[in-house]
Structures are given as C-alpha cells and as structure tokens.
C-alpha cells in the first residue's frame, strides 16, 4: 500500500476578479522509503501542494481532492485535530530559510524539547537526552553546548541542521523538504544534501524534495515530477527525465540551464511568461510558449496520462510521437 496517495488535488484562491488556481489536478503517489523530487519555477504550485497536504492552506484558499490518503488514513475525512496529530508526528516539513523557520525568541534546546514533549510524551530529562542525540545525528559538533543557543547565534547551515533534527525527532514516515538548501552556500548545501540522503536511508523515511534546482534533484531523487502553473506536466524516473524528457516544458527548462549550454554564447530561452490570474489558457497551459504547439493543443487541455514508465500531460509527447 502506498504511503501517500494524492489524486486530483486542487487549491483555489478566489479573489474579486478571478479564481487563482494555485494547484490544479495534481496526482502523486509515494511508497515508504521513496525519494520524490518536485521541480518547478515560481508560480508552479509545488510548495502549495505540500502545504495542502499538511493542512497549512488557510482561508481564503479552498482545498479539494478526489483522494488524499496518508498511511492508510483518509485525510479528507479527519477532523482538524486528528489531522494535526497524525501529520504532526508522521509527517515533517523543513523550509527554505532556516533563520526564519526557527523561533528567534527560544533556544534551540527549548524548541527541540517542545516537539519531543508534545508528540512523544517525554519528560524534560528524557527530552534533553534525546535532543543531544538528535543534534549529534545531524552532525552538529559539541551538541550539549548548543542547547542553550539562540538561532541567530548560529550560521544558516547550522540552523538548517537544527530544523532537520526537529523534523526527524519523531521518526516521521515522510519528510517534506521545501527548498531546503536554496538559501545556503554551495559547500554547505552539499553537506546538507548528504545529511538528508544518509538520514533518509537510515530511518527509511520517504522524502519529498521541492526545488527549482534541477541539479539538486538529479542527485537526490529517484522519481521527479515537473510542475508548471499548478499542474504536473511530467512524472518520470530521475535518470530518464534528464536523458530524454517527454514534455516540451521539461525539455525547454533543461535547455535553458547554463550548465547545459555546451559553450554556446546564447542560452535557449522560453518565450512568453507563466500564465497569471487573468490569462489562463483554455487548452494546454504551456501551449502559448511551446515550440511544438498546434491548434489542438490550444483548444483541448491534455490529461495527465501514463506514457512510457511515467506520466505526461501532453498531446504530443516528445520525440513528437502522436498518441
């Protein structure tokens, strides 16, 4: 049985002029111990998808889904309290900016102990002992001395490790990492990614890695989902998606990367802009910017369907084979 099953998840934000489709018909599934990478640019809805899963989307956002199951529980049917209990313990989330994700008014030790006391029912002494163990596990030297330190007294890399320690403190089944290394230096990023990989293996956690950095995803993930304007455009194994992308957007995204420019003076760009609130296309969302689009693409929106060991949302997946 899959650990996480999401079917047709949508998040809408109604406003005076139009409805904003932040997430539009996203379907994902994840087994225990899997590593899934969700890639997309700004406005693709990748963060909002996971926030909807965690129940963090507040008014006026509306969350709808055909299926939203975690570990056998139907999240759509649980009360807010029961859901918080379940997701608080078995699902953990770490965010982009470690300095603002940790509460600046409380020490590191206090924040770690808080999670342990709440979800694991430990008393102060046991919580302190476990906190030191966790800090060691995430590679913080001299952990006892860090318990009484405030977040602003430590560097970004250290704070991110503390965040990870808090996240794994309850041995979650699923860890969602939303751009965990974007705010960090490259060498620190390498350390944090290594840490995540080690922890994922040791604790057999499922890991969802949300990022705009294709390089990070290529190193960490087994499967990759590419999102654009709230929809999933392609889901495939990490190896295949980089060697042979099936969706024109994935191909264009890879072509725009400087690492893949092969010494050419100019980079390939994607003309046009991501659809905004008022100009959401009727047909395929990427059609206005796609080099291969024809009238069929512009009038009929493609469904996400199975295609060669993955899923793709395109009438004419590359290399130009008609369905």
């Amino acid at each position, binding site marked *: 049985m899959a650990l996480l099953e999401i079917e047709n998840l949508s998040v809408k934000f109604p406003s005076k002029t139009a409805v904003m489709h932040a997430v539009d018909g996203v379907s994902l599934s994840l087994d225990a111990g899997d590593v899934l990478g969700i890639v997309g*640019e*700004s406005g693709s809805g990748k963060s909002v998808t996971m926030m909807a899963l965690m129940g963090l989307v507040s008014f006026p956002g509306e969350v709808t889904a055909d299926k939203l199951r975690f570990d056998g529980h139907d999240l759509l049917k649980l009360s807010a309290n029961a859901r918080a209990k379940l997701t608080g313990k078995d699902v953990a989330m770490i965010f982009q900016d470690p300095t603002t994700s940790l509460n600046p008014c409380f020490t590191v030790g206090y924040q770690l102990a808080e999670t342990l006391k709440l979800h694991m029912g430990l008393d102060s002494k046991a919580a302190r002992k476990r906190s030191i163990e966790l800090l060691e596990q995430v590679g913080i030297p001299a952990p006892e001395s860090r318990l009484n330190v405030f977040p602003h007294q430590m560097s970004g890399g250290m704070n991110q490790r503390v965040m990870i320690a808090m996240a794994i403190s309850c041995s979650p089944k699923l860890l969602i990492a939303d751009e965990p290394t974007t705010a960090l230096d490259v060498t620190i990023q*390498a350390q944090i990614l290594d840490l995540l990989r080690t922890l994922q293996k040791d604790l057999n956690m499922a890991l969802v890695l949300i990022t705009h950095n294709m390089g*990070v995803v290529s*190193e960490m993930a087994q499967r990759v989902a590419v999102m654009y304007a709230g929809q999933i455009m392609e889901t495939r194994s990490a190896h295949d998606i980089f060697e042979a992308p099936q969706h024109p957007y994935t191909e264009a995204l890879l072509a*725009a990367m400087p*690492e893949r420019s092969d010494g050419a003076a100019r*980079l390939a760009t994607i003309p046009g802009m991501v659809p905004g609130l008022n100009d959401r296309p009727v047909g395929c969302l990427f059609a206005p910017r796609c080099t291969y689009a024809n009238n069929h693409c512009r009038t009929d929106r493609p469904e996400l369907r199975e295609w060669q060991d993955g899923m793709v949302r395109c009438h004419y997946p590359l290399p130009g084979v008609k369905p």
Partner: protein
Amino acid sequence: MSLPDKTIEASAAPVVVARDLKQVYKISRGVMHPADHLQAVSGVSFTVLPGKTLAVVGESGCGKSTLARMVSLIEVPTSGELTLDGVDVVKASAAERHTLRRTVQLVFQNPFGSLNPRKKIGAILEAPLEINTTLDAKARAEQARAMLALVGLRPEHYDRYPHMFSGGQRQRIAIARALMLKPALIVADEPVSALDVSIQAQVLNLLADLQQELGLAYLFISHDLGVVRHIAHDVLVMYLGHAVEQGDKKTIFAQPLHPYTQALLASTPGIVGAGAPRKRIVLSGELPSPLNPPGGCVFSTRCPHVTAQCHNARPVLRELAGRQVACHLAEQFT
C-alpha cells in the same frame, strides 16, 4: 538612438586595474574595549579589459560583495590601488570621483529592492541623466525610451510602476538604468541569483548581447558556478577575503588547483546522469569568523589536504600552470 560601436582591439586599455586592494572595517565593541578589525578584503588584484567578463566567485563571507562596493565607488578601499579608466580612485578628489560615476555602474541582486516603488520607470531611468547631464526633459525622455527598447521592453512600460513587473523584467530595468550614463564597466552583484532558470537565461543573454554591442566590461559576482562557466572569461575565486585562485576560466574549470576551487566545483550539483556518484568533496566544518581568521592559510581549517606548513605560513598568490593560485600544495594537483 545610435550607440557608438566600440571595436575592441587586443591592446585596448584596461577598464579597471586593482592592485592589492584591502578593506578593513572597524567594529566598535563599546567604550571599554579596543575596536575589532574585520578584514573583509585582504589584498586582491585583477584587471578587466573592455568587452570581457571577470567573474568573482565565492560563498558568503568571502568578501566579493565588499569588492563590488569598492569597485563601484560606494566604499573607499582602506589601502591598495584602484584605477578606473586611467584615474586612480583612492587618490582622486571628490569632484573626480563624481565624474568617475559615469564610468562604472552597479546592478543589484534583488530585483524587488533595487527600484523605487513610488517612481515610474521613466523617472527611474531619467534620474541619472537629470543629476549628471544638462539634457532637457525631451532629450532625457528620448534616451530613456531608447534604452527601454534596447533591453527588450515595450514603450508603454515607460509609464508603469515597478510592482507591475516580474523579477526578470525588473532586472532588465535595472540594467537599463545602469546603462543610461554609458559606463565602461558594469559591476553585477549576483544579478540572476533570484531569478528562475528560464528567466535567468533571458537576462544572461541580454547581458551577453549588450557586452558585444557596447563593448562593456563586466565584474560579475556570483556563487553559481554554472552561470560563471557560461558567462565569464576570467575567474577570481575568493575565500575569507583572499584570492585563492584566479585566471582564465577554461583553465581553471578544466583543472582547478586550489582545494577550495575543487570543492566548489565538486559541490555544484550538475546533471551527470542522475544517481551517478560524482567525485564528492564534502568540506567539513564551517567558515571561520572573519574577525578571527586562521593563522597561515585561511582555508587550513577545512582543507582535506592540510599539512603543518599550511597552518604556519600563509601561501602567496603565484603563477602556476597558466593561472595564479595561493596554495603550498598546488603542484600535486597538476
């Protein structure tokens, strides 16, 4: 508007020459203690020719932003020589420095903070002309509109406010503003770091096109080695205020000799066929505090190849294998 076509000769005079630039900040520790000295930049030297890009690479705390501020005349170096278009900046009078503003301009990292939200784009672009030239309103507006077209924006954008534009468009506006006084050198401080990949590609293309058309020199600050590899001609790698390796881009990327450069290149996630284990060099520890730099080589606390000599003696930048490197052990990597 016709812009002068600058043909670049091989023997063209360099736009900027820096020799042993140093920047030291005094951090006050109250009345009772002597002030701390923060060595932000310690002895950096380089040259940039017209039509060329020097990329300054390093992580936070390496001093690259301070270097950018010195070269763009926001700060005066504590010591060293800085020559812009033949004029010595450190010795220049205030009036001379005033005219030097037309030679160098700065493009900032954050597209959402570099444009005044209360001013229209037209006003933002005309401001440098208002302050520094005697053109009348009509001429200024003409130049502003021409510049908008040059960076790929529409004429109707002249009357809009910044919040109506996306990050990529704002960077174009920032670049347009930097070009208004027709500078010879543009200092770009992480200009594409905050942009999505596809937008980043557009802005990088724009910068490349402008460099070719106008013969601009770029001092390009970045931490993203993928971008640096694409856009730079020369590279300067900095660590804790020191230049650890510098020279031609192709030479350095093909065979980095300094352990820090090697670690930077190895840490940059690239697409090498997913899952294939890259030769990973994961550095241990964290950046030392610039208030208390290590004696000897500044990289000695984290270097995987450190020896006793590295702790005792600070390596000097020297010529080796076609570039300059500051490492006692550089020979073993050739």
